[in-house]
């Protein structure tokens, strides 16, 4: 029996077969021989998570659009399927043509969160691709990766041949062209990697040597060949209107996490929250024009039949013509029975009325993210939300018939004290108070306030990249304290187990050596770490011990301002001076203005014509 037959048999036995079977609308792309270059797009998590991801849809469309390249999808199978695959010796197969991963010329992983790293190893392993770049031969695929976590590529440097840093739309095609040329001209792997290293925004880790100080800190990361650039500059697409956006996207049969049209209205964010890595990495802010968006919305709706369009960006409320966009979308989509999901935070009152008339907003839960409980703490993290703002919106919502509010916070933020934790409870209590202040006959029944507190993870390229994460012990104490103070009628408290956040902190700011820990942990059986039921903290700790590395060195250590950081050879456009300045201001509780009010000199102003808000010398 060949593996495809065995795979068919496996489908009869697994829990959710549809996540493996494909055949979705807008996915029957090309015959294998139609295009010379075969790209395997790997999402290192389950189908349901991967198919909710916008980046997958963009690159899938982009690669398949070129006549010379073909893209098929791979996802991380669930444990029941993995067990059968192991037993029956079935390789990891693409969704479209059910070919093993190793048959592709290039395989690309998207790096959205650190806790998916073990899945990357698992997928390569199951797909017949040797795990480390030094183990791969001439016939093996070139393994590439991109996405936000690629900004600190070092933890994956042993496993990935080439990283794409920054916006993927342009560099993806450039990279594929090089690999196509390799195929045509029969270049050896080494030559191909060196050619890739010449591309702007491409980092080939094997072409760099890392040295360490005696205390374990990185001493230097330097190129070991002429083709490698000393620092790798992130790619930025400057005009989103002229950047590829798919007009046809796959429509899964089964429900996935985000089962709707996602319209990326802008990229980047001007607010400058100091904990937020995305806010730094995706700078500068770039908007798609109203015209482009309306065109895309029409096309996507026709191609998918979806019932819902959601506006996607880091801070959709800041989009400059949001009211016009929403009004126009609602007008066009009304007859098609398509609802528009909105950034709930900033609906002006006129809009709210027209919303209520036209499509009866579903009064589900409203979400707010004050992130911290006291004004002092919010100033430290530069989160420009005041208590009055928040309470006003909540009041409006309760008067408007909502009864359910979700509040998101973080604990473990730099300089946090008990008072800040108590502030979370105070705020929750005030929200409850707003509800009861609405006369009984005017409010919806059954108040539900959910307070979710996640654990702060310091990330590269943020002003807090030098900060330690709270130790597990401290986090546990804080959680106990929060449980105590948040014992409020009408309030549900959701907290996170600290272990995953601790691992995330290790890998977010890890160096090249931590890759060994990843491999060890995988060999011990760690996979699907983003899922409670499969995460094995004990095995991770064992792996650290086996490799002689201390997780606290990565997670809980305050880094010297002069230290070479493992990602210093990656140029995100944001300067170290700016990050240090922001760090200092944060410790003094000073806020920094929104870029729309004036440039703060983050470093990007030096890249000519990249940031639309950067006026010379306005620091």
């Amino acid at each position: 029996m060949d593996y495809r037959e065995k795979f068919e048999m496996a489908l009869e036995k697994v829990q959710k077969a549809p996540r493996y079977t494909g055949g979705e609308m807008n996915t029957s792309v090309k015959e294998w021989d139609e295009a010379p270059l075969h790209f395997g797009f790997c999402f290192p998590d389950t189908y349901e998570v991967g198919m909710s991801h916008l980046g997958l849809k963009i690159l899938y469309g982009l690669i398949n659009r070129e006549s010379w390249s073909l893209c098929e999808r791979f996802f991380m199978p669930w444990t029941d399927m993995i067990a059968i695959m192991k037993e029956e010796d079935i390789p990891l197969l693409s969704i479209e043509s059910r070919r093993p991963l190793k048959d592709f010329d290039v395989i690309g992983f998207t790096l959205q969160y650190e806790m998916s790293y073990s899945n990357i190893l698992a997928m390569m392993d199951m797909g017949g691709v040797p795990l480390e770049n030094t183990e791969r031969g001439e016939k093996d695929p070139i393994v590439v990766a991109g996405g936000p976590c690629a900004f600190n590529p070092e933890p994956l440097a042993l496993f990935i041949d080439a990283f794409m840093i920054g916006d993927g739309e342009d560099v993806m095609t450039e990279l594929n062209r090089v690999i196509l040329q390799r195929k045509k001209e029969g270049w050896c792997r080494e030559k191909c990697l060196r050619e890739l290293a010449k591309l702007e925004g491409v980092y080939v880790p094997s072409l760099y040597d890392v040295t360490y100080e005696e205390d374990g800190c990185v001493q230097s990361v330097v190129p070991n060949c002429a083709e490698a650039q000393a620092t790798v500059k992130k790619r930025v697409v400057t005009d989103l209107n002229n950047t590829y956006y798919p007009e046809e996207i796959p429509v899964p049969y089964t429900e996935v996490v985000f089962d709707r049209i996602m319209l990326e209205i802008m990229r980047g964010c001007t607010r400058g929250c100091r904990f937020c890595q995305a806010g730094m990495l995706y700078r500068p802010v770039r908007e798609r024009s109203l015209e482009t968006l309306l065109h895309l919305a029409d096309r996507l709706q026709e191609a998918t039949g979806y019932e819902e369009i959601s506006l996607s960006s880091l801070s959709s409320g800041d989009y400059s013509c949001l009211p016009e966009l929403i009004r126009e979308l609602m007008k066009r989509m009304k007859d098609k029975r398509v609802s528009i999901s909105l950034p709930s935070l900033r609906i002006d009152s006129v809009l709210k009325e027209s919303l209520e008339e036209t499509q009866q907003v579903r009064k589900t839960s409203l979400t707010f993210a004050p992130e911290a409980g006291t004004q002092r703490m919010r100033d430290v993290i530069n989160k420009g939300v005041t208590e009055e703002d928040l309470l006003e919106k909540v009041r409006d919502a309760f008067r408007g018939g909502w009864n359910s509010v979700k509040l998101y916070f973080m604990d473990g933020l730099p300089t946090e004290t008990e008072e800040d934790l108590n502030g979370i409870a105070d705020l929750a209590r005030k929200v409850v108070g707003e509800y009861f202040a609405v006369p009984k006959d005017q409010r919806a029944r059954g108040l539900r306030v959910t307070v979710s507190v996640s654990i702060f993870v310091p990330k590269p390229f943020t002003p807090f990249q030098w900060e330690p994460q709270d130790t597990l012990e401290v986090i546990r104490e804080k959680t106990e304290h929060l449980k105590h103070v948040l014992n409020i009628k009408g309030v549900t408290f959701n907290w996170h187990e600290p272990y995953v956040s601790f691992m995330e902190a290790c890998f977010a700011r890890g160096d090249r050596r931590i890759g060994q820990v990843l491999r060890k942990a995988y060999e011990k059986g760690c996979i699907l770490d983003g899922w409670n039921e499969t995460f094995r903290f004990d095995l991770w700790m064992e792996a650290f011990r086996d490799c002689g590395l201390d997780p606290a060195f990565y997670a809980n250590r305050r880094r010297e301002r002069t230290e070479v950081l493992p990602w210093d050879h990656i140029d995100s456009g944001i300067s170290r001076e700016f990050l240090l300045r922001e760090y200092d201001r944060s410790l003094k509780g000073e806020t920094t203005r929104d870029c729309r009010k004036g440039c703060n000199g983050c470093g990007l102003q030096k890249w000519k014509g990249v940031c639309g808000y950067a006026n010379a010398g306005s620091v």
Partner: protein
Amino acid sequence: MLAVFEKSERIRHIGHLDIQRSVQRGLRRSGLPVAYSQGFNPHILITFASALSTGACGKREIMDVTMAEDTDAETFMQRMNRAMPPEMQLTEARPVDDRHPSLMGSLRAAVYDLTIREKDQAEKLISAIPAMMEKEKILTLRKTKTKLAECDIKPLIYALRGRDCHVYATLALTERESCKPQMLLEALKAEAGISEEVRMLVTREALLGENGAGELIPLEKL
């Protein structure tokens, strides 16, 4: 509009609710003038003759779509087939008026092709057919929501024969009583003395209704 569509082998694991949603989205993509329900969450007015279970393919599944404007069959077919994935293509469409009897109410039986994956199992099962059909009662277990109950499926089997690796069966399928292919298989296994697992592919070939003369004919022809 009455339409006949296929659920291909590749997507046989997609459940009925997801198939329904996919057809709805297909209709929305097609731009055809379909009628929507009123109210909070408007949906297209559409009924399916019968839910096809997860794991089974269907050759001639039937739906009835309420149109907002008159539409001819050809346009409907063309637009829908462009709007549906290759795994769910339409093979026939026919305008019917509102007085057309309800699909579900007219449904009497279904024709199945059970493809048995193992050859020797297929042989044993097929050779057990005559003996089983001789019996006065064919007892097998029926799963209900809460329990397993024994029942006699003999009156529910309208036709049964086998060839090569296929068992062809016409089985009762109404709102009140029906015989699932799995129940038939269990009965056949018992008769053939097979206790191990039998892997089979279920294909529902057609849905049948009853005409004025009391004959079973394809539901879409009623």
